[in-house]
């Protein structure tokens, strides 16, 4: 991966952790003292490389996995913030990425009943009896990452 793209990606993730949201291309252009179009191109290359996910037909960050910037049922308290997880895997991944304890509030996909999971020192100490279901085989995850 291009060193500039790696720098941009690192800036996106550091901004997410610092501010709770990803930088716009304008924000990142100011941080890099670079043209906005160069940042937009880097965002698109990172999207194509599955290192970020952009909202369709935009350069706005939808996912810097495991963090998500669109509403989902998965809320995660970890590292002093409340985050949104893209899916069950990412929701449990947020404490992992932050190297922190975490509390996941989510819902049963079937009935909408509230579910809670607790991660302490990496272990799932509450909610371990719940199930996760993956509909799409691994080789097709990126065909439609929003559905996956």
């Amino acid at each position, binding site marked *: 991966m291009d060193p500039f793209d790696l720098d941009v990606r690192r800036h996106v993730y550091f901004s997410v952790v610092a501010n709770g949201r990803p930088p716009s291309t304008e924000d990142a252009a100011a941080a890099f003292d670079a043209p906005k179009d160069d940042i937009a191109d880097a965002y698109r290359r990172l999207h194509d490389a599955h290192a970020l996910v952009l909202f369709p037909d935009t350069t706005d960050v939808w996912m810097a996995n495991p963090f998500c910037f669109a509403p989902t049922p998965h809320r995660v308290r970890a590292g002093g913030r409340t985050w949104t997880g893209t899916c069950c895997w990412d929701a449990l991944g947020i404490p*992992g990425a932050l190297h922190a304890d975490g509390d996941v509030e989510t819902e049963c996909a079937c009935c909408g009943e509230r579910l809670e*999971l607790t*991660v302490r020192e990496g272990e*799932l100490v509450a909610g*371990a009896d719940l199930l*996760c279901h993956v509909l799409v085989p691994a*080789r097709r995850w990126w065909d439609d990452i929003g559905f996956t």
Partner: protein
Amino acid sequence: MVFLRSEEHLERWLGANGWEPGATVPARQMNELARTWWWSRLDPGWQPRTAEQSQALLDVVGLTGEFWSLQA
């Protein structure tokens, strides 16, 4: 990739949507995978993993077989 309360709820959810089952993973196993998979995501020196490295992370938590194969 969703959370479900039980096998009964899973079957009801699949039936209501007309979907074929994929793979069911106990939450404890998913937590093991998630912790491993995302652990280095914020590292300053992060580099993308190869497909083989990602496959190995699935393997190590016991997610093996065709469904979990990352290669087409």
